[in-house]
């Protein structure tokens, strides 16, 4: 990105040489994104991130698929575990006359193909289910879910923001029709992402503007962001191919979790297969936000849920959907480990959590 700032600053749509250099940089990045998900470059549309991507894919595909249908209302199927961006896009569809159906997770956060199959209707035009959950880290078997979803010919979109770069993604094997990804979840810059949409499908554009992204998303491209995104995808793909990083991160996560769960009154949220680096835990009697603040004061960054909803006293809809009472949901703390996490970090964090939890519990 630093290099691009100095050398590749033209408008990618321009005729001149500087513009063409910028265009080339974007197309190289596009190639990397496509390769990461096993798709074609023509199927990638750059966006400002996951939220715009979810809106473009979900609303764009649903509206196009509904077309001029008459008769029973078109339906969209999803789950209450989805990210707020997906929920908001679905709320917009509801305002535009779609019926939204919900498939229920089990208390561990798992969604079964049987449940999906039972919930799909002939009027369902789109099913949207995340590849991995943003709060719990739960991983889903997309191939099985998409098979169940497509019995009645519905399209299948998956918010893969939490999975891309962490687990291998192959859109063909998974049987999906559209995917959302974002750069900052794979060590790329914030404010840029992409949507993969299967060739031949049309997603009605959200942003009316110029001809960029082959008329699918108007507006001068976020050149620096896209360059960074491409580089991040290339690095992630190499890492996934080498295979060692995921196992290492998962092992550290398991180590951390074992120490955290040894604290009296600790519990974990979400079970089954998970992405390697996520752990969502809670400590009874300790407000999650106060624990996060206490850890921040020790130089440790954790989260209480989607960054998009922090600062609000609303407990996480994901945890409520698992059946947790609101007070228990407010105790949740999400730890994310990654490429740079070390065993020493895990020990330091576990020690700090024990101290902070005790102090927060003692505050009354």
């Amino acid at each position: 990105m630093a290099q691009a700032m100095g050398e590749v600053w033209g408008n990618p749509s321009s005729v001149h040489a500087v513009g063409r250099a910028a265009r080339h940089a974007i197309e190289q990045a596009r190639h990397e994104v496509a390769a990461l998900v096993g798709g074609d470059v023509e199927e990638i549309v750059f966006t400002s991130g996951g939220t715009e991507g979810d809106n473009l894919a979900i609303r764009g595909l649903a509206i196009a698929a509904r077309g001029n249908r008459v008769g029973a209302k078109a339906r969209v199927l999803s789950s209450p575990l989805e990210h707020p961006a997906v929920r908001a896009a679905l709320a917009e569809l509801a305002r535009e006359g779609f019926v939204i159906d919900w498939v229920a997770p089990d208390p561990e956060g798992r969604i079964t193909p049987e449940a999906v199959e039972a919930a799909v209707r002939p009027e369902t035009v789109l099913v949207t289910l995340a590849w991995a959950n943003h709060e719990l880290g739960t991983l889903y078997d997309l191939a099985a879910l998409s098979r169940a979803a497509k019995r009645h010919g519905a399209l299948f979109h998956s918010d893969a923001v939490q999975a891309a770069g962490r687990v291998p993604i192959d859109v063909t094997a998974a049987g999906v029709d559209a995917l959302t990804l974002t750069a900052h979840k794979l060590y790329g810059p914030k404010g840029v992402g992409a949507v993969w949409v299967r060739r031949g499908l049309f997603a009605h554009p959200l942003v009316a503007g110029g001809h960029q992204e082959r008329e699918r998303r108007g507006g001068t491209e976020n050149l620096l962001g896209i360059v960074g995104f491409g580089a991040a995808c290339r690095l992630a793909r190499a890492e996934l191919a080498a295979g060692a990083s995921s196992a290492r991160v998962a092992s550290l996560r398991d180590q951390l979790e074992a120490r955290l769960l040894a604290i009296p009154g600790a519990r974990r949220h979400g079970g089954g297969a998970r992405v390697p680096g996520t752990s969502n835990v809670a400590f009874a009697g300790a407000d999650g936000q106060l624990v996060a603040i206490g850890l921040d004061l020790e130089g440790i960054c954790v989260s209480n849920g989607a960054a998009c909803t922090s600062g609000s006293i609303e407990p996480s809809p994901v945890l409520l959907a698992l059946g947790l009472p609101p007070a228990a949901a407010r105790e949740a703390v999400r730890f994310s480990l990654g490429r740079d996490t070390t065993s020493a970090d895990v020990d330091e964090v576990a020690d700090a959590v024990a101290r902070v939890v005790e102090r927060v519990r003692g505050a009354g």
Partner: protein
Amino acid sequence: MSGASPRPRVVVAMSGGVDSSTAAGLLCEQGFDVIGVTLKLYDASGTAASIGGRCCSPRDIDDARATAARLGFPHYVLDEVDAFRSAVIDDFVDAHRVGRTPNPCVRCNERIKFGPLLRFARAVGAEALATGHYARLEQTADGPVLRRGVDPDKDQAYFLFGLRPTWLAQLRFPIGGFDKDEVRAHARRLGLPNADKPDSVQICFIPDGDHRGFVEARGGAGRPGVVLDERGEVLGEHTGTHLFTIGQRKGVPARDGVRRFVVSVDAETGVVRTGPREAIARTRFEVEDVRWIVPVPAAPARLSVQIRHHAPARAATVAADGDRLAVTLDDSVEGVAPGQAAVFFDGDRVIGGGWIADAGDAPMVDVARLRVARADASSAP
């Protein structure tokens, strides 16, 4: 690192205004490990009110955050929107509906601000909580001593009587010993972004100042009815008892050149009784729900009592009357309003306080006789 003791940690409650920001700046300068916190008390997002505010609006939260960034200490936001709505806003609206004069700032201090903020301070390992109130607090061997701030125009001791003594032991008021000009001078010296931010006089949760509209929109409107004079004759009609408070002159129809003031408001019948100045003069009233900062004084006690902000405290004798206090002022005062806070002082020291109870007894002055006396006097040569 041997021998170096960690800096004492203190939490500063920041409203986004220059007073609390300066308090934080002074504590930083004195070497404390400061942590700033702002309470989110109401959700004005999406409204015109979110653009500017008095306390705790999105703009104010941002001013607090900018001050913390400038001074280099962590800043957090705590959401108390639900609790504030039920304990302060609903109380405020309900009071209007039943004809009482509410005091939301005192309610907020006693029910919302200090409890959660002190818990936050304990949770982050702080030894004290500081605010930008204009008041002075001294921790003595006999317990905390709370006094008025030195600036008589800004003194906020009136609002702090409800603080429990256990809380006072953990509080600090760094700017109580300065007047407003000195505070602004410190703020400029420290380079604070809001050093010249104007003080607002609006109630914090009604930033546009439309008190009436706010109350009416939330079901706080009182009954319409009649306005009566001191003889019980009708002066006019009104559209809601919530528009009147005891001692008020505004809104009382004039007649025969006599200025009249609201003597009582009856929310059930919609009757607003008025009378001349003498009619709202009282020397005796009762106070309920009393709390003391010091050991309960032996009754009867000689204290001074303040019955509204921006009013001097008046000499009085205070005695127990069941579970209320009976207050007898040396001299009459106008506008004793049920629902307002009555705060007791010993000199400039806050002793305790409570809430003025509904008027049980009639005004001390017999207004009918007074009118006759005045008529006699005016007909004299």
